Protein backbone atom coordinates (compact mmCIF):
# COMPACT_ATOMS: atom_id res chain seq x y z
CA UNK A 1 0.00 0.00 0.00
CA UNK A 2 1.16 3.50 -0.89
CA UNK A 3 -0.08 6.89 0.39
CA UNK A 4 -2.89 8.16 -1.81
CA UNK A 5 -3.82 4.68 -3.04
CA UNK A 6 -7.53 3.84 -3.08
CA UNK A 7 -8.72 0.56 -1.57
CA UNK A 8 -10.85 -1.73 -3.71
CA UNK A 9 -14.33 -0.58 -2.85
CA UNK A 10 -16.84 -2.89 -1.21
CA UNK A 11 -20.46 -2.80 -2.37
CA UNK A 12 -23.20 -4.65 -0.53
CA UNK A 13 -26.99 -4.48 -0.56
CA UNK A 14 -28.53 -5.69 2.70
CA UNK A 15 -31.58 -7.76 1.84
CA UNK A 16 -35.02 -7.31 3.37
CA UNK A 17 -34.40 -9.76 6.23
CA UNK A 18 -30.74 -8.97 6.92
CA UNK A 19 -31.54 -7.03 10.09
CA UNK A 20 -33.36 -10.06 11.48
CA UNK A 21 -30.39 -12.36 10.81
CA UNK A 22 -27.96 -9.80 12.23
CA UNK A 23 -30.13 -9.34 15.33
CA UNK A 24 -29.90 -13.08 15.96
CA UNK A 25 -26.19 -13.25 15.18
CA UNK A 26 -25.26 -10.24 17.32
CA UNK A 27 -27.87 -10.44 20.08
CA UNK A 28 -29.05 -6.86 19.42
CA UNK A 29 -32.85 -7.19 19.22
CA UNK A 30 -33.67 -3.48 19.48
CA UNK A 31 -37.07 -3.40 17.73
CA UNK A 32 -36.18 -0.38 15.56
CA UNK A 33 -34.10 -2.88 13.55
CA UNK A 34 -36.67 -5.66 13.22
CA UNK A 35 -40.20 -4.27 13.64
CA UNK A 36 -41.40 -2.13 10.72
CA UNK A 37 -44.48 -0.80 12.51
CA UNK A 38 -42.66 0.13 15.69
CA UNK A 39 -39.89 1.82 13.73
CA UNK A 40 -42.46 3.99 11.96
CA UNK A 41 -44.23 4.77 15.23
CA UNK A 42 -41.01 6.27 16.60
CA UNK A 43 -40.56 8.44 13.52
CA UNK A 44 -38.16 6.35 11.44
CA UNK A 45 -38.77 5.63 7.75
CA UNK A 46 -38.95 1.93 8.61
CA UNK A 47 -36.60 -0.66 10.06
CA UNK A 48 -33.05 0.66 10.07
CA UNK A 49 -29.73 -1.16 9.86
CA UNK A 50 -27.68 -1.85 12.97
CA UNK A 51 -24.81 0.66 12.97
CA UNK A 52 -22.43 -2.08 14.07
CA UNK A 53 -23.42 -4.20 11.05
CA UNK A 54 -22.48 -1.27 8.82
CA UNK A 55 -19.23 -0.89 10.78
CA UNK A 56 -18.61 -4.60 10.10
CA UNK A 57 -18.84 -3.82 6.36
CA UNK A 58 -16.21 -1.10 6.82
CA UNK A 59 -14.07 -3.63 8.71
CA UNK A 60 -14.55 -6.23 5.96
CA UNK A 61 -13.46 -3.73 3.30
CA UNK A 62 -10.20 -3.31 5.24
CA UNK A 63 -9.53 -7.01 5.87
CA UNK A 64 -10.31 -7.97 2.26
CA UNK A 65 -7.85 -5.34 1.04
CA UNK A 66 -5.17 -6.11 3.61
CA UNK A 67 -5.15 -9.89 3.20
CA UNK A 68 -7.11 -11.14 6.20
CA UNK A 69 -8.56 -10.40 9.61
CA UNK A 70 -5.14 -10.44 11.33
CA UNK A 71 -4.22 -7.22 9.50
CA UNK A 72 -6.89 -5.01 11.08
CA UNK A 73 -5.38 -3.55 14.24
CA UNK A 74 -7.72 -0.61 14.88
CA UNK A 75 -10.91 0.88 13.45
CA UNK A 76 -12.66 4.00 14.69
CA UNK A 77 -15.87 5.34 13.18
CA UNK A 78 -18.54 7.97 13.61
CA UNK A 79 -22.13 7.00 12.91
CA UNK A 80 -24.37 9.56 11.18
CA UNK A 81 -27.96 9.28 10.09
CA UNK A 82 -29.25 5.79 9.47
CA UNK A 83 -28.78 2.93 7.06
CA UNK A 84 -31.71 1.25 5.36
CA UNK A 85 -32.26 -2.32 4.15
CA UNK A 86 -32.53 -2.94 0.39
CA UNK A 87 -30.33 0.02 -0.57
CA UNK A 88 -26.76 -0.46 -1.71
CA UNK A 89 -23.90 0.54 0.59
CA UNK A 90 -20.48 1.42 -0.77
CA UNK A 91 -17.37 1.41 1.40
CA UNK A 92 -14.39 3.33 0.04
CA UNK A 93 -10.99 4.05 1.54
CA UNK A 94 -7.78 5.89 0.78
CA UNK A 95 -4.37 5.20 2.28
CA UNK A 96 -3.24 8.30 4.15
CA UNK A 97 0.17 7.21 5.37
CA UNK A 98 2.40 4.14 5.54
CA UNK A 99 5.25 3.47 7.94
CA UNK A 100 6.68 0.88 10.34
CA UNK A 101 4.63 -1.91 8.80
CA UNK A 102 1.39 0.00 9.34
CA UNK A 103 -0.96 1.79 6.95
CA UNK A 104 -3.51 4.37 8.09
CA UNK A 105 -6.62 4.38 5.90
CA UNK A 106 -9.36 7.04 5.77
CA UNK A 107 -12.61 5.24 5.01
CA UNK A 108 -16.37 5.93 4.73
CA UNK A 109 -19.60 4.02 4.10
CA UNK A 110 -22.13 5.73 1.85
CA UNK A 111 -25.75 4.92 1.03
CA UNK A 112 -28.00 6.98 -1.26
CA UNK A 113 -25.43 9.78 -1.24
CA UNK A 114 -25.27 9.96 2.57
CA UNK A 115 -22.18 9.05 4.52
CA UNK A 116 -23.69 6.81 7.19
CA UNK A 117 -20.22 6.10 8.56
CA UNK A 118 -17.84 8.99 8.30
CA UNK A 119 -14.48 10.18 9.65
CA UNK A 120 -13.50 6.55 9.98
CA UNK A 121 -9.88 5.56 10.33
CA UNK A 122 -8.37 2.11 10.06
CA UNK A 123 -4.91 0.95 11.05
CA UNK A 124 -3.70 -1.99 8.97
CA UNK A 125 -0.66 -4.21 9.30
CA UNK A 126 1.07 -4.24 5.91
Amino acid at each position, binding site marked *: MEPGEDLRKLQVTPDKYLTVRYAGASGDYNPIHIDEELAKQVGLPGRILHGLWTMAQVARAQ*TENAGGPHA*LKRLSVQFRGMGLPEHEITVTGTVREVGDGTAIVDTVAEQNGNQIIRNAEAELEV
Partner: protein
Amino acid sequence: MAIETKAVGKTFPTTTYAVGREKVKEYALAVGETDPIHLDHEAARGAGYADVVAPPMFAVVFKAPAMAPAIFDADVGMNFALMVHGGQEFRWGPLVVAGDEIQTNVTVRSIDERDGKGFYVFESVSRNQRDETVCVGTWTNIVRGV
Protein backbone atom coordinates in the same frame (compact mmCIF):
# COMPACT_ATOMS: atom_id res chain seq x y z
CA MET B 1 -28.82 21.60 34.52
CA ALA B 2 -25.33 20.15 34.82
CA ILE B 3 -24.86 16.63 33.56
CA GLU B 4 -24.55 13.93 36.22
CA THR B 5 -21.00 12.56 36.21
CA LYS B 6 -20.91 10.47 39.39
CA ALA B 7 -20.59 7.25 37.37
CA VAL B 8 -17.21 8.18 35.83
CA GLY B 9 -14.72 5.47 36.74
CA LYS B 10 -17.41 2.98 37.65
CA THR B 11 -16.59 -0.64 36.77
CA PHE B 12 -18.89 -3.59 36.21
CA PRO B 13 -18.62 -7.32 36.89
CA THR B 14 -16.27 -9.32 34.68
CA THR B 15 -18.09 -11.45 32.13
CA THR B 16 -16.87 -14.66 30.51
CA TYR B 17 -17.95 -15.60 26.98
CA ALA B 18 -17.16 -19.01 25.47
CA VAL B 19 -16.68 -18.61 21.71
CA GLY B 20 -18.57 -21.31 19.82
CA ARG B 21 -17.87 -22.52 16.29
CA GLU B 22 -21.46 -22.29 15.08
CA LYS B 23 -21.89 -18.79 16.59
CA VAL B 24 -18.80 -17.56 14.74
CA LYS B 25 -20.16 -19.00 11.49
CA GLU B 26 -23.62 -17.48 12.07
CA TYR B 27 -22.06 -14.06 12.73
CA ALA B 28 -19.66 -14.32 9.77
CA LEU B 29 -22.53 -15.14 7.41
CA ALA B 30 -24.66 -12.27 8.74
CA VAL B 31 -21.93 -9.72 8.01
CA GLY B 32 -21.11 -11.17 4.59
CA GLU B 33 -17.74 -12.77 5.23
CA THR B 34 -16.67 -15.19 2.51
CA ASP B 35 -13.17 -16.15 3.67
CA PRO B 36 -13.41 -19.87 4.60
CA ILE B 37 -11.28 -19.36 7.73
CA HIS B 38 -14.46 -17.88 9.29
CA LEU B 39 -16.82 -20.56 8.00
CA ASP B 40 -15.06 -23.92 7.80
CA HIS B 41 -12.97 -25.27 10.69
CA GLU B 42 -10.93 -27.48 8.37
CA ALA B 43 -10.01 -24.50 6.22
CA ALA B 44 -9.13 -22.57 9.37
CA ARG B 45 -6.92 -25.43 10.58
CA GLY B 46 -5.30 -25.60 7.17
CA ALA B 47 -4.42 -21.92 7.55
CA GLY B 48 -2.83 -22.57 10.93
CA TYR B 49 -5.65 -21.63 13.29
CA ALA B 50 -7.06 -23.94 15.97
CA ASP B 51 -10.65 -23.49 14.75
CA VAL B 52 -12.84 -21.01 12.83
CA VAL B 53 -11.58 -17.44 13.21
CA ALA B 54 -13.94 -14.79 14.53
CA PRO B 55 -14.16 -11.75 12.23
CA PRO B 56 -12.73 -8.72 14.09
CA MET B 57 -16.18 -7.16 14.61
CA PHE B 58 -17.32 -10.35 16.40
CA ALA B 59 -15.97 -8.40 19.38
CA VAL B 60 -19.46 -6.88 19.72
CA VAL B 61 -20.80 -10.37 20.45
CA PHE B 62 -18.40 -11.35 23.22
CA LYS B 63 -18.49 -7.83 24.69
CA ALA B 64 -22.29 -7.51 24.73
CA PRO B 65 -22.91 -9.27 28.06
CA ALA B 66 -20.40 -6.93 29.73
CA MET B 67 -21.67 -3.76 28.01
CA ALA B 68 -25.39 -4.16 28.76
CA PRO B 69 -25.18 -3.54 32.54
CA ALA B 70 -23.06 -0.42 31.92
CA ILE B 71 -25.36 1.04 29.28
CA PHE B 72 -28.44 0.47 31.45
CA ASP B 73 -26.79 1.50 34.74
CA ALA B 74 -28.91 3.87 36.84
CA ASP B 75 -25.89 5.91 37.99
CA VAL B 76 -24.90 6.47 34.34
CA GLY B 77 -28.51 7.49 33.77
CA MET B 78 -28.65 7.83 29.98
CA ASN B 79 -31.98 8.89 28.50
CA PHE B 80 -32.48 6.20 25.87
CA ALA B 81 -35.23 8.07 24.06
CA LEU B 82 -32.71 10.78 23.11
CA MET B 83 -29.61 8.60 22.74
CA VAL B 84 -27.68 7.71 19.61
CA HIS B 85 -24.59 5.54 19.19
CA GLY B 86 -22.29 8.31 18.01
CA GLY B 87 -18.95 6.62 17.63
CA GLN B 88 -17.07 3.41 18.12
CA GLU B 89 -13.46 2.33 18.18
CA PHE B 90 -11.93 -1.10 18.47
CA ARG B 91 -8.26 -1.98 18.84
CA TRP B 92 -7.39 -5.60 18.24
CA GLY B 93 -4.70 -7.94 19.47
CA PRO B 94 -4.42 -11.66 18.65
CA LEU B 95 -7.32 -13.15 16.69
CA VAL B 96 -10.14 -14.91 18.53
CA VAL B 97 -11.02 -18.46 17.45
CA ALA B 98 -13.77 -20.89 18.41
CA GLY B 99 -12.91 -22.53 21.71
CA ASP B 100 -11.50 -19.35 23.26
CA GLU B 101 -12.91 -18.02 26.52
CA ILE B 102 -13.03 -14.25 26.61
CA GLN B 103 -13.26 -12.20 29.79
CA THR B 104 -14.41 -8.60 29.48
CA ASN B 105 -14.29 -5.67 31.89
CA VAL B 106 -16.14 -2.41 31.28
CA THR B 107 -15.40 1.02 32.76
CA VAL B 108 -17.23 4.33 32.41
CA ARG B 109 -14.35 6.30 30.90
CA SER B 110 -15.91 9.80 30.77
CA ILE B 111 -19.16 11.75 30.85
CA ASP B 112 -19.02 15.26 29.38
CA GLU B 113 -21.42 17.90 28.26
CA ARG B 114 -20.76 19.83 25.04
CA ASP B 115 -23.22 22.00 23.10
CA GLY B 116 -26.13 20.77 25.18
CA LYS B 117 -25.33 17.14 24.46
CA GLY B 118 -24.08 14.48 26.82
CA PHE B 119 -21.14 12.35 25.67
CA TYR B 120 -20.92 9.03 27.50
CA VAL B 121 -17.78 7.03 26.81
CA PHE B 122 -17.41 3.40 27.88
CA GLU B 123 -14.27 1.28 27.57
CA SER B 124 -14.27 -2.49 27.44
CA VAL B 125 -11.13 -4.60 27.70
CA SER B 126 -11.35 -8.24 26.57
CA ARG B 127 -8.73 -10.89 27.30
CA ASN B 128 -8.47 -14.51 26.22
CA GLN B 129 -7.65 -17.56 28.35
CA ARG B 130 -3.91 -16.81 27.91
CA ASP B 131 -4.46 -13.30 29.37
CA GLU B 132 -3.71 -11.70 25.99
CA THR B 133 -5.71 -8.54 25.29
CA VAL B 134 -7.71 -9.46 22.19
CA CYS B 135 -9.80 -6.30 21.88
CA VAL B 136 -10.29 -2.91 23.53
CA GLY B 137 -13.53 -1.21 22.61
CA THR B 138 -14.53 2.42 23.12
CA TRP B 139 -18.24 3.22 22.84
CA THR B 140 -19.41 6.82 22.57
CA ASN B 141 -23.12 7.38 23.14
CA ILE B 142 -24.55 10.85 22.62
CA VAL B 143 -27.69 12.04 24.41
CA ARG B 144 -29.42 15.17 23.16
CA GLY B 145 -30.79 17.81 25.49
CA VAL B 146 -29.09 16.88 28.76
